[in-house]
């Protein structure tokens, strides 16, 4: 235990030293962007990876793969093809050009300037401020579950301790996009995931043998999962069953597509100096993501066989070995199955994954509240923006910590999917159309954004039982946990309670943007020419 804590402290010293080094060099450089441009491609690659991937992806969704198996691999396909290729090639390049031309500093500001609307900037800022803490809490829970299992520190202590360390990290230079730190963190994550993959496949006798053993384990699928439609970990779920809908509409589609409208990612496009960085990021991102989520999902699924065959957990599959908490599957696997030395290094890799992602989430949340909502949306006079930014980041950190404390077990993947789905419904139509269609109007963008948000909120409160049941408003007003329960059991309407809100809200939001734009006043031609000048 002492060695684990000493290693964790050594790691933190390295991270803070690198953060300080990068921060000092950045201040000395005459041009911050130029300093980034001179970075070695390896440093660039690893830093991209560290910010892409968080504990939510590895621990949360890795745990989901432990429960649901290989269907999660479709999310990796989307992570790479949509989250990297389409995001950088079809969104990133245009976002950079339009964003820099319009001098936008945040994602809501880009939308606000594109549509010449303070309301759009303020409303987008408000949504991000209100809901990004839930996503950040998912990432925070991921690392704290790992600390809880691996270092045997109570969850509450881990939560407070890690938050304090992170707050110091963010203040000492995490916001500056310190690439040395991120490169160190990315390298550690990459190496640990490869070790985990080799361990899992070799302990089960090879790739095909491991998959076959998982296939043969299907009869041991827990009864409650079978009742929900699960057939097996490599067999997937029965088409149209409740769990099939949860896996494909929420976890795969919601997260896979929602990544396109993530405010903290869109900001990155505007901070690079040319398309070259984006092109190279496609290469590195493609390799990094398959090594992160791909491996996490394969190992998460295979952990069922390894737990089942182990002496310590004989006869138990992953979710049973983790005491019923999906979020603990990967931490228990790493701590109790993998060699002890790996447990320590994996914990540090998860520190890395959490720190780099949380720093960008806190930053995105803080600027959304301070710059987008308060300063631009409300029209407040701000004399010291830096001070406001620090205060708003502090508010986001506190709210995130509270969410991480109150959210229930097995929540990481769901909370992440919630934020991604919300972003897809509220922002994706006006973001995408804003980049590609001159005809979308201010009214079209406003109605789409507000409409997408309201439909998502309605669906969450009254239809999607995963949220509507615990929230209780539907029960109080209509006497049922979901309006879908009023339909005949097993019918298509009844199954709507398992369909993710974004499946309904995003298409309606797109339709609203399109139809309202056809019927409302166009933006001035000079403004559109300016936006499109160098696209």
């Amino acid at each position, binding site marked *: 235990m002492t060695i684990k804590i000493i290693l964790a402290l050594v790691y933190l010293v390295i991270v803070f030293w690198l953060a300080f080094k990068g921060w000092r060099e950045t201040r000395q450089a005459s041009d911050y*962007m130029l300093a980034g441009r001179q970075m070695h491609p390896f440093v660039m690659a690893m830093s991209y990876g560290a910010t892409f991937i968080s504990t939510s992806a590895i621990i949360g969704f890795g745990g989901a793969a432990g429960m649901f*198996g*290989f*269907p999660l*691999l*479709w999310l*990796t*396909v989307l992570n*790479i*093809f949509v989250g*990297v*290729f389409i995001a950088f*090639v079809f969104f990133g*390049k245009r976002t*950079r*050009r339009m964003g*820099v*031309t*319009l*001098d936008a500093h945040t994602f809501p500001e880009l939308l606000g300037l594109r549509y010449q609307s303070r309301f759009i900037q303020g409303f987008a800022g408000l949504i991000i401020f209100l809901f990004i803490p839930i996503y950040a809490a998912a990432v925070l829970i991921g690392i704290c579950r790992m600390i809880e299992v691996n270092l045997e520190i109570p969850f509450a202590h881990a939560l407070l301790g890690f938050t304090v360390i992170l707050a110091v990290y963010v203040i000492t230079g995490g916001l500056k996009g310190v690439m040395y730190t991120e490169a160190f963190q990315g390298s550690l994550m990459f190496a640990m995931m490869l070790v985990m993959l080799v361990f899992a496949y070799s302990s089960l006798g090879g*790739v*095909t*043998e*491991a*998959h*076959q*053993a*998982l*296939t043969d384990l*299907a009869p041991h699928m827990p009864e409650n999962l079978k009742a929900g439609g699960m057939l*097996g970990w*490599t*067999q*997937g779920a029965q088409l149209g069953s409740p769990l099939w809908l949860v896996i494909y509409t929420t976890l795969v589609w919601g997260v896979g597509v929602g990544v396109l409208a993530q405010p903290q990612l869109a900001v990155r496009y505007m901070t*690079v*100096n*040319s*398309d*070259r960085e984006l*092109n*190279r*990021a*496609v*290469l*590195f*991102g*493609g*390799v990094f*993501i*398959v090594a992160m989520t*791909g491996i996490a999902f394969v190992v998460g699924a295979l952990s069922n066989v390894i737990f089942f065959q182990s002496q310590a957990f004989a006869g138990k599959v992953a979710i049973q070995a983790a005491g019923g908490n999906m979020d603990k599957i990967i931490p228990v696997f790493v701590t109790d199955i993998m060699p002890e030395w790996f447990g320590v290094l994996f914990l540090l890799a998860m520190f890395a994954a959490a720190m780099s992602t949380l720093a960008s989430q806190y930053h995105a949340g803080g600027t959304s509240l301070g710059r987008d909502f308060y300063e631009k949306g409300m029209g407040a006079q701000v004399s010291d923006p830096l001070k406001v930014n620090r205060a708003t980041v502090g508010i986001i950190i506190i709210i995130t910590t509270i969410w991480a404390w109150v959210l229930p077990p097995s929540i990481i993947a769901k909370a992440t999917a919630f934020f991604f789905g919300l972003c897809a419904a509220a922002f994706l139509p006006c973001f995408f159309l804003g980049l590609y269609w001159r005809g979308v109007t201010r009214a079209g963008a406003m109605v789409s954004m507000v409409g997408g948000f309201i439909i998502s909120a309605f669906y969450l409160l009254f239809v999607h039982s995963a949220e509507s049941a615990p929230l209780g408003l539907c029960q109080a007003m209509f006497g049922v946990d979901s309006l879908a329960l009023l339909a005949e059991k097993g019918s298509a309407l009844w199954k709507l309670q398992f369909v993710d809100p974004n499946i309904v809200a995003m298409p309606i939001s797109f339709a609203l943007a399109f139809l309202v734009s056809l019927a409302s006043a166009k933006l001035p031609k000079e403004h559109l020419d*300016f936006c499109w*000048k*160098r696209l």
Partner: protein
Amino acid sequence: MLGIASPELALAYVLCLAASVLCVVYGIIKWNDTGVLSMELQDSAKEDE
């Protein structure tokens, strides 16, 4: 295929690797393609104002 019972999930396994290869090939082909630099965009925007 590959010991995976469902063909569609075996396809997902293969597509993970294929999508990764696509990204690598794209990155190599476009390795030095800078497009218009952000500094040029800023200068150009200032001129218009």
